[in-house]
């Protein structure tokens, strides 16, 4: 089951440049929340702060409070490795492991976490691939085909399956369909709709129609600040802030 996310006073920097200014946001469990905004507004930085991926870049740091369920992500006892296991991430460009089979890709996270039981792993791999709507297409080639031999859309679903295999509570998606063709994109969007039953999903997108299609809540970012955050319907029909309105009507970005 998914959990809620509570963000308070999140600031982030790349070296000396501040890229996020005191973000406050509450993400509801088992809902899909979209993060939109023009290029460079900090939306990718924001979600990368949620699973502590932001700090893996040299000279980058983040401060503030991020509470995911009962886990205090930036707390003093918090281990980034554990944080990242519990918060899954899917990237813009599908990045399956080319040297591993489909099975190997999905099981990669399990192996890292010390899984040894073959039967349990088989079950989990099957379950993850089913959740990612990829099982039927690859079930006969699990060990034969490499992760990189699939089509773009399949690769991305493989990456989703891989992320889900370690049973995260939250799934972060950084423009997951922007590198895909329209048909694969709609498959992914369908998938996101299914996934929210089990997970909390935060999706970054530059495609406003996509946000409108899949997300119940939407946050609009501009120059590192969260300008407006509300039900998606409201953001797109009667935005409270003029800047939001300017963005969604296409005046900039």
């Amino acid at each position: 089951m998914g959990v809620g996310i509570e963000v308070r006073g999140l600031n982030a920097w790349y070296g000396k440049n501040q890229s996020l200014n005191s973000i406050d946001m509450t993400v509801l469990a088992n809902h899909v929340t979209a993060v939109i905004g023009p290029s460079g507004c900090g939306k990718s930085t924001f979600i990368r702060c949620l699973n502590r991926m932001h700090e893996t870049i040299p000279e980058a740091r983040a401060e503030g409070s991020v509470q995911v369920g009962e886990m205090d992500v930036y707390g003093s006892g918090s281990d980034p490795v554990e944080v990242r296991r519990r918060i899954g991430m899917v990237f813009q460009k599908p990045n399956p492991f080319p040297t591993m089979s489909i099975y190997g890709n999905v099981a990669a996270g399990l192996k890292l976490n010390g899984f040894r039981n073959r039967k349990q792993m088989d079950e989990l791999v099957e379950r993850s691939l089913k959740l990612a709507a990829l099982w039927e297409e690859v079930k006969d080639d699990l060990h034969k085909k490499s992760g990189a031999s699939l089509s773009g859309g399949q690769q991305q679903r493989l990456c989703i399956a891989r992320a889900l295999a370690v049973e995260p509570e939250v799934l972060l998606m950084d423009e997951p369909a922007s590198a895909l063709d329209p048909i694969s994109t709609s498959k992914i969007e369908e998938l996101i709709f299914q996934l929210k039953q089990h997970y909390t999903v935060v999706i970054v997108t530059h495609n406003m129609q996509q946000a409108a299609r899949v997300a119940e809540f939407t946050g609009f970012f501009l120059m590192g600040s969260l300008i407006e955050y509300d039900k998606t319907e409201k953001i797109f029909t009667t935005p409270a802030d003029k800047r939001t309105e300017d963005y969604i009507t296409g005046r900039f970005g």
Partner: protein
Amino acid sequence: MSDSVDPMNPTEPLRQLQKPATAIPSMAQVSRERKPAASTVLQKIRASHPRASRIPDAVFAVIILLSAISVFAIVVLVAWELIDKSRMSLHQFGTSFFYGHDWDPVAGSFGAMPFIYGTLVSSFLALLLAVPASVGVAVYITEMCPQRLRAIISFLVELLAAIPSVIYGLWGIFVLAPLLRVYVEPFLARTLGWTGFFSGPMYGLGMLAAGIILAIMVVPVIASITREVMTAVPQNQREAVLALGATRWEMIRMGVLRNARIGIVGGIILGLGRALGETMAVTMVIGNRPEVAKSLFAPGYTMASVIANEFSEATGDLYLSALVEIGLALFLVTLIVNALARLLVWSITGGTARVRA
């Protein structure tokens, strides 16, 4: 790519030259107006230009072609001389040359097995020591090193490659060998003597010393290739592993080394090629005794060393021919090994990476 100029191979310099030289901005404008591809321009010029420049062009092309062919000619000449001058020995001994144990020039018997054994053992011992060290160094520089230290450390490792073989040998005789004789070999004999690899008289000079020196010489080769193929692994692979909840080492292992492993193997094979042909340092510390012995403390002899030591004093055509045959064998083996290595490395880096010899 790399952050420092590698002293043994120029790479960095021309990065900056992506902008046209300041001397000819107007020419670039002219070119833009015309907008033809270079080949059609050439065709046009050749068609319209007075004969006068076609001859110099042709002459130049021929000179350049000759220099290129000369490279080919040199290799062919080298191979030919080796084959030609070893004919006598090849004819006399046939294949028994390579498994004969007896190297006795006085008696006229020439069995090269001790040298083959010595070459193989010293090279593999060198790899055994050098591979973990080189991969460790490469991992450190690429994934763990703080940004400001990177240039210095990689420069220092490359500097190891700049030291001439004879200086390694000098240091080996007067510094390493006594160290081995007094401290290391007794220790190894006490702890691991039962294996049979560390027994017998301890001279300091011998197979162990040769293996260690070779390892030091081969580390920069393997390390630089490993670094190159590791750097070629895209960043998103690293992120994918981290996002699953991996420690840094797990990220390196699964996201980088795993992807780069073919290239790393290529680098190791290239290191092997270097070790097989290494002459001076080995000659100076290996003891130069043509014997096959199990213990690493024992002196040995390699193919390159026997040539270095005995060639100028070889009496008789058969003796010389036998030595040339050893040279021929060395030539062929290093040829195959190097070709294999380059194949592996190019398959990862896409054919343009320089492979440092």
